[in-house]
């Protein structure tokens, strides 16, 4: 397969976006509601005129004067490559969107571009301010969907996004879509995760290398995530969360939309519960996603773990009933501290339960063999 290609015009478009970023920031965030997707639909001339009426001509001349060699040299210097809409390898999903980027700048494995098709990719997004529950589910969805052969797309943000990426990396590879340049690790504290994805997966962006993050570039990034995948799953989002923008955009494109239910008395998952009430597909585990995307029962996730003895099954049942700590389990089952500790560690090692930083246990989706499942 040939290397991904980009024509100079498309690369200049991404330069123009970076150049206009501060102007767009002013009009996109100065008014109510985000208008960046509408703006990005415009041609170069209209966009420049709309964003920077006074400097439009000068900016367009400047951008037009950048030589092709310089455009390519910048990409090479940032260890990136580009793929524009005129290239065969440009992701199919993006061709459906009227406001799609002209070119994708990528860092990492270009072979993953070919897997970025609506039938094979799923976008997992959610709030940055996520609960432990949401993070755990995101991680598992990421892992199990990847294990089932799907490509998990997310946005490298705090909370759900990062957990989905981490889960996916446990089972294979993943794609991160950034609002800044592909060579910029944003947020900075996810630098190590970003580096890992660059090495084992793919990072893409519509911005040229070196561009910083702007407030408007996140909703803009969301439209790419929504278009790339056949289904968008919102794991946890409060009302008015940014991930609901992704959900809206996905629905507008006619993509499947899924949401993970959360407790109805809590504010953190209110947005996802609203999505469910509005008809989004109910996502309890990876199997629900596979059924929705590929048709019921077409592909099964592997959800059966190694065999357990009766004592371990009792402890597992206690965790399922909501006993969160080692202490509570030993009190409810009348086991000694040592016995409970050993059973819980085995269950954790086998992947049946997970333990948080403060020592509270929660059940994973893995089922013991012979169990009835749900």
């Amino acid at each position: 397969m040939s290397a991904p290609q980009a024509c100079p015009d498309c690369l200049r478009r991404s330069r123009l976006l970076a150049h206009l970023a501060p102007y767009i920031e002013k009009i996109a965030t100065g008014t109510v509601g985000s208008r960046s997707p509408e703006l990005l639909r415009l041609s170069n001339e209209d966009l420049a005129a709309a964003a920077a009426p006074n400097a439009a001509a000068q900016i367009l001349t400047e951008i037009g004067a950048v030589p092709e060699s310089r455009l390519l040299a910048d990409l090479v210097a940032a260890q990136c490559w580009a793929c524009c809409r005129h290239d065969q390898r440009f992701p199919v999903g993006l061709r459906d969107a009227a406001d799609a980027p002209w070119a994708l700048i990528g860092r990492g494995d270009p072979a993953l571009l070919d897997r970025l098709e609506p039938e094979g990719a799923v976008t997992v997004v959610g709030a940055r301010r996520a609960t432990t529950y949401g993070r755990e589910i995101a991680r598992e969805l990421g892992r199990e969907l990847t294990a089932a052969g799907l490509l998990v797309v997310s946005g490298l943000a705090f909370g759900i996004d990062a957990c989905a990426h981490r889960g996916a990396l446990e089972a294979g590879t993943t794609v991160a879509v950034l609002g800044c340049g592909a060579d910029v690790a944003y947020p900075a504290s996810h630098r190590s995760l970003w580096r890992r994805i660059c090495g084992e997966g793919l990072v893409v962006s519509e911005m040229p290398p070196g561009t910083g993050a702007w407030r408007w570039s996140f909703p803009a990034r969301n439209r790419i995530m929504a278009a790339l995948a056949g289904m968008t799953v919102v794991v946890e989002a409060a009302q008015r969360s940014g991930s609901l923008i992704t959900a809206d955009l996905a629905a507008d494109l006619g993509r499947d939309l899924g949401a993970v239910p959360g407790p109805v008395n809590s504010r953190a998952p209110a947005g996802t519960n609203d999505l469910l009430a509005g008809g989004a597909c109910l996502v309890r585990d990876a199997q629900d996603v596979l059924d929705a995307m590929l048709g019921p029962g077409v592909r099964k996730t592997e959800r059966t773990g190694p065999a357990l003895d009766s004592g371990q099954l009792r402890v597992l049942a206690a965790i399922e009933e909501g006993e969160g700590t080692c202490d509570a389990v030993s009190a409810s089952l009348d086991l000694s501290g040592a016995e409970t500790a050993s059973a819980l560690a085995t269950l954790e090692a086998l992947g049946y339960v997970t333990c948080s930083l403060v020592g509270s246990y929660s059940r994973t989706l893995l089922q013991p063999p012979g169990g009835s499942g749900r």
Partner: protein
Amino acid sequence: MRTTRRIWLLSLVSVLATAQTFTLDGIAARPVRVEVDVHRGLPAFSVVGLPDAAVREARERVRAAMVNCGFEFPLRRIVANLAPASLRKAGPGMDLAIAAALLVASGQLDLGRLPKLALVGELALDGAVRVVPGVLAIAEAARERGTEAIVVPAENGPEAALAGDVGVICLENLTQISALAAGEWMPDRPEPMPLRLSSEAGVPDLADLRGQRHLRHALEVSAAGGHSLLMVGPPGAGKSLAASRLPSILPPLAAEEALEVARIASACGRLEDDEAGGRPFRAPHHTVSPAGLVGGGNPPAPGEATLAHRGVLFLDELCEFRRDTLEALRAPLETGWVSIARAGAWRHLPCRFMLVAAANPCPCGRGEADPECSCAPLAVRRYQARLSGALADRIDLLAAIRQPSAEELAGPQGEASADVRERVAVARERQESRLGPGRSNAEMGPREVRECALDEPAAALLADAYSRRRLSGRAHDRVLRLARTVADLAGAETIGREQMAQALQLRRRDVE
């Protein structure tokens, strides 16, 4: 009348007298020679030789005590020099020596036995000799120097007698000094105070902890291997109660260790009247400063970490401590020593303690699983991130605690400390026979950790956990140390699968 005439005669020449005493430097005693010179000139009394404010004020105390005990205060030029001049002298313990030297210099006291004695004590205005801190260290230093006997305040007598091979003379009042110097009066050597090796009477017992089997298990493992422990749970779940019971299940102190504890307590003025030794339990408030925790100030004074030597240092509300305070604790925790360097002073203080920390699961304390918890997820993340800072990295065990149920609280008492202590002591013996005297599993170096024997299923479980949960190299060693302790408690030579599983469960978790 006769005394007055002698002073008059002596007024023609300058007279010098000396006395031996000690000053405290951190927790060690340093010898000080008091030289008093009385000569002609305008009446004045000055103290030279780097005295601190308390030593300088000795002038007033000595003057009043001498007058009130029937001596005469010479109205002449008096200079008291404290040698060596380069050493800072602190505290009121030099009053007695200054007074004795001044009495000799002014001809009111015969030298007699004084050159063979060291004198320590603070003077009251009526001449009574008051207690001073650090008498144990001072008596030991006197013994090292070959001093025949040490004169101490009567209340400090039993403490000084702990030092062993040195005479101890209890002085109640300055008036007794003439008879003492002349050899007419010689009090009996006081009985040394009892040295407490294990914590028994008067120490809270683990039986008070009802239910909480997991916490009991964690406490026992932590005591058996000397592993530091982090307890996480809602307020009122019994974290402080459990921590304060930990000294009672630690193995008995060796006599030398008990003496170390007593020496530190004595130097800090915290020695109780009836007993010395026993495992200390220190619980500094979270507003403590770095100097308060590890020692500091100028001149450097011991901190909470040194006071907790051979005992337990309990940091309640770990997340509320200042970051620099906790950072300061890192190196001492690793080495067992605090080194404080100040301009002109350098101290090396022992601090081999067990660290026990407690924290709430989230800022409101209820824990995320509780529907009442109103903490924003980000706030919880930020709070919990503080549980994995540099200090937390040195913590081996995590015990997640929950509120005990009403039945548990009304239920029977738990196992008593004495029974647990017995098992802990046996496990410690096994460690000492393997690692050497006084060492525990928590202190094992990387090489010793690698030498721990594992059976096959245990190794498989550890390898599985290592690859699946991405244990770091440090966490891997931590689990092995814990597993070794669990195996020592079980009396096993080789770490089995069961013990490895327990260690994996008990280990402290890291953030990703």
